[in-house]
């Protein structure tokens, strides 16, 4: 009996390639080439980069999952290993699933590699091939990567014309580079076709499942969102894995926001001295009427907390992207985690809560970035977008991003010169409309618009106070605004078609793995309802989903069950109902991990017939739901 079977066994358009190299050797372009070639064949693909916090010389892996079913997560198994790094040979070889393939550079004999007799070993003399055809150490290193891309292309039956086209797109303006890349590719391709029977049983066959899709990373998508939201001030302090968001914003602005005549820019891009200054700049700019944002990761969020409290209390919009990485402290800067859920929700001292958005993939990073600016302006408060390294830095296949030209930024309740002319007197913190959101003005616009912004106690009229009643009026009004926020933030995505009394809940990048796990569980007769929470404060549907299920699995990527804690603190759910599934080793969560955890909790190994009562319940032997019987 197979205790934990892979979701499905590998086959055509359904397998995982892992490429082990050394960082700083330029393997990224070869890996991207392979991904893109598969994607352009119409076959869905997932790419995960496991890289060190280092510039050169440490091991790095790239995992390409070919997934005809279009799953978004890591699968957790490896079918084809390209072992290019001597230092990690042993563990790389050990990781390949039985019946898998091992590709290595046979320029030097590697008898140790043959230690496993359940693998097919494919030796290609990559170094020799490249050294015979290219001069210069650096060139040879780079070309060896393109050469293994050629080997894989032959084994997987990739379309050579498509590869040529992709290389032309990259090196179109540098014909010499195009030629050498094509030559290196052909060296690997031809050698493999001559010496091995191609393709492998695991190979790529053309499909039509990527039409209307793009391959994009979450940081680029978020940067596009900032561009389209009309952000004009960006401030940051470099930190992995958020830096590429700022780099992308800058390059998008350089392409679209520079006056061709004067060379003057419609944006300010400010590298601050630290994260304290970065968030200060954002708050100052937003206070003065510009749309402003910063991107950071956990350590930066820690530094920003005092200012976030000011922005909450003084009611200044601000947009912060937290691309989460492994903590605590410096942690593992190049690995992924969802470790800042609580730090962001309650950032700063005193009674402070922040609106948080939890995108699940790059597509959502784009739309939620725009939404973050609208919400920040509408609610006059910081909005934190919690992405993570997996979403931010890996290429994901998603639907084409759409844009509606009728969009106009929702700047919220801002009084302009005409409105100020008309009113008797302006009071900054007065709840005129009863929704807890006051009106604000922009400096320099009108003498009647002046007010004093402070983080110290203030009355609803904007004056300094230490009066208990006056203080509490504002504090309570902020709570009313928090209630308004619940109605404005994105709702949860709920799939209750299983009609089960057991649910599974996640946030952010856990989505892909949970969806895949749900399919796998269904094949085993286990059906669960699913909810993905997309924002804090929790909207009513979150409360309802939790209430409607007898048992709820909470899937998240941190050790301390932070999301579960937030659910217990901010909804009326009974703690005992929530079962954590926690994954926090720095790798993105896989569906297999969730399937195993769910089955273990439900008390029966997969495939077992002697199901526990809980399991029989989810397997369709319906038990009446609370309130129904």
């Amino acid at each position, binding site marked *: 009996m197979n205790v934990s079977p892979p979701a499905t066994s590998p086959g055509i358009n359904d397998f995982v390639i892992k490429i082990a190299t050394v960082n700083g050797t330029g393997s990224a372009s070869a890996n991207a080439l392979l991904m893109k070639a598969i994607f352009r064949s119409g076959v869905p693909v997932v790419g995960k980069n496991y890289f060190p916090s280092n510039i050169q010389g440490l091991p790095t892996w790239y995992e390409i999952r070919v997934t005809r079913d279009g799953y978004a997560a890591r699968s957790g198994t490896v079918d084809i290993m390209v072992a290019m790094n001597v230092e990690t040979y042993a563990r790389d070889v050990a990781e390949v699933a039985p019946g898998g393939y091992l590709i290595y550079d046979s320029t030097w004999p590697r008898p140790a590699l043959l230690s496993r007799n359940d693998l097919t070993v494919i030796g290609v003399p990559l170094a020799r091939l490249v050294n015979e055809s290219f001069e210069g150490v650096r060139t040879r290193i780079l070309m060896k990567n393109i050469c293994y891309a050629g080997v894989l292309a032959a084994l997987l039956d990739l379309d050579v014309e498509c590869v040529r086209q992709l290389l032309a797109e990259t090196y179109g303006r540098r014909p010499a580079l195009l030629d050498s890349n094509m030559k290196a590719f052909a060296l690997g391709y031809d050698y493999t076709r001559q010496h091995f029977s191609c393709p492998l049983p695991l190979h790529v066959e053309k499909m039509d499942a990527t039409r209307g899709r*793009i391959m994009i990373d979450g940081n680029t998508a978020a940067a596009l969102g900032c561009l*389209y939201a*009309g952000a004009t001030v960006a401030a940051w302090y470099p930190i992995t894995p958020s830096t590429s968001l700022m780099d992308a914003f800058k390059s998008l602005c350089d392409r679209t926001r520079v006056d061709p005549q004067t060379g003057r820019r419609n944006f300010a891009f400010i590298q601050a001295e630290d994260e*304290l200054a970065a968030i200060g700049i954002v708050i100052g700019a937003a206070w*003065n009427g510009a749309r*402003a944002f910063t991107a950071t990761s956990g350590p930066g969020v820690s530094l920003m907390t005092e200012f976030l409290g000011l922005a909450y209390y003084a009611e200044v919009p601000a947009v912060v992207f937290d691309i989460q990485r492994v903590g605590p402290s410096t942690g593992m800067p190049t690995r992924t985690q969802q470790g800042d859920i609580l730090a962001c929700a309650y950032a700063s001292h005193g009674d402070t809560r922040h609106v948080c958005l939890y995108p699940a993939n790059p597509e959502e990073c784009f739309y939620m970035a725009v939404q973050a600016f609208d919400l920040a302006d509408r609610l006059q408060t910081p909005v934190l977008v919690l992405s993570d390294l997996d979403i931010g830095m890996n290429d994901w296949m998603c639907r084409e991003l759409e844009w509606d030209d009728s969009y106009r930024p929702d700047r919220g309740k801002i009084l302009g010169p005409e409105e100020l002319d008309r009113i008797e007197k302006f009071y900054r913190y007065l709840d005129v409309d009863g929704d807890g959101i006051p009106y604000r003005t922009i400096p320099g616009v009108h003498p009647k618009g002046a007010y004093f912004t402070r983080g110290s106690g203030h009355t609803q009229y904007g004056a300094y106070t230490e009066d208990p009643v006056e203080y509490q009026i504002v504090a309570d009004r902020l709570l009313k605004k928090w209630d308004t926020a619940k109605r404005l933030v994105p709702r949860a995505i709920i799939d209750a078609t299983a009609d089960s009394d057991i649910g599974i809940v996640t946030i952010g990048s856990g989505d892909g793995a949970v969806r895949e796990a749900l399919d796998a569980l269904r094949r085993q007769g286990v059906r669960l309802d699913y909810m993905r929470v997309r924002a804090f404060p929790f909207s009513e549907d979150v409360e309802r989903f939790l209430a409607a299920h007898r048992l709820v699995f909470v899937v998240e990527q941190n050790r301390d069950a932070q999301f579960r804690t937030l659910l217990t603190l901010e909804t009326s759910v009974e703690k005992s109902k929530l079962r954590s599934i926690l994954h926090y080793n720095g790798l993105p969560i896989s569906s297999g991990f969730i399937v195993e955890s769910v089955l273990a909790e439900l008390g029966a190994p997969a495939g077992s017939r002697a199901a526990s009562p809980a399991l029989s319940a989810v397997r369709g032997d319906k038990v009446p739901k609370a309130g129904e019987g």
Partner: protein
Amino acid sequence: MTFIPKPRIDHPNLPRNALGLTRRDYEGALSTLCAGCGHDSITAAIVEACWDLALRPETVVKLSGIGCSSKTTAYFVSRGHGFNAVHGRMPSIATGANAANRHLHYIGVSGDGDTLSIGLGQFCHAIRRNLNMLYIIENNGVYGLTKGQFSASADVGSKAKKGETNLQPPIDPVLLALTLGASFVARSFSGDKRQLVPLIQAGLRHKGFALIDVLSPCVTFNDHEGSTKSYAYTREHYEVAVHADFIPAEREIAVEYSAGEALPVTMHDGSRIVLRKLAEDYDPTDRIAAMAAIQEHMRAGEYLTGLLYFEPSNREFHDICGTTDVPLNSVPYEQLSPGKAGLEKLLARYR
């Protein structure tokens, strides 16, 4: 205690500036500082300077951190917008605000604690950015608001009210600003309005970062015998090196300056600063020499004051950023979004 409005009785004969506004129009809420606090005199000088320059009050942006000094932004130009930031972080708020709208007048008021301890980094980086703002340090050698601890500007040997002697060397904001390449560096004294008002005006009109370190005694915690930041000590050890007269572009030079005695410098907007050297051999246009002279006087326990260094035209923050003239908070959305067609193009490389 709530908001204390000042009783408003306008005399019909109060002098009016070019906008027809009186000094009262540039005042703020009633000060809650200790009677005799140096900071209040600086507030009065700011009111005078803004009134005389006829700044539109709503274009004045007042920024501060936390401290007695930082409270004072509520006590002037109440028709301007104020932002009391968190302790030591006013420069970053100023940077963002200025990034969003380059056309307003930014006045930052800070204390020696706010600027030289918790906020030292942000202060230095605002100078490096050459942020177009006037930055006033109300320097009393102590943390007033937290009841008299030494600040980083306390001199070696200066005595605290409770008798403790400071043994750590001070951080001097003027010397620091000079090493960081600041283009307008001044020192003054809250008790010398004649010197302070034109300095504030020149600083407001200066394109780039203008620093005025104002000795501003704390009567409650640092005005005793043995303190080097008391009224008595400051008056005694205070030497004006350079007096700066400020003449706005729109005004004629009224006084005759004889050649050799005075050095008129034209600013980027046509305003003029007329520098009159009072200390022998002091050259406010030579950064290195100025630093040497300031340090020599410091060794002798003296404060050299006036516009200690000035360099008229230079590249300010927005020139470095390459931003447009239109304030970034007012660029029409249509110019910011590449639209549906633009997205189509931008996404090409991801297909």
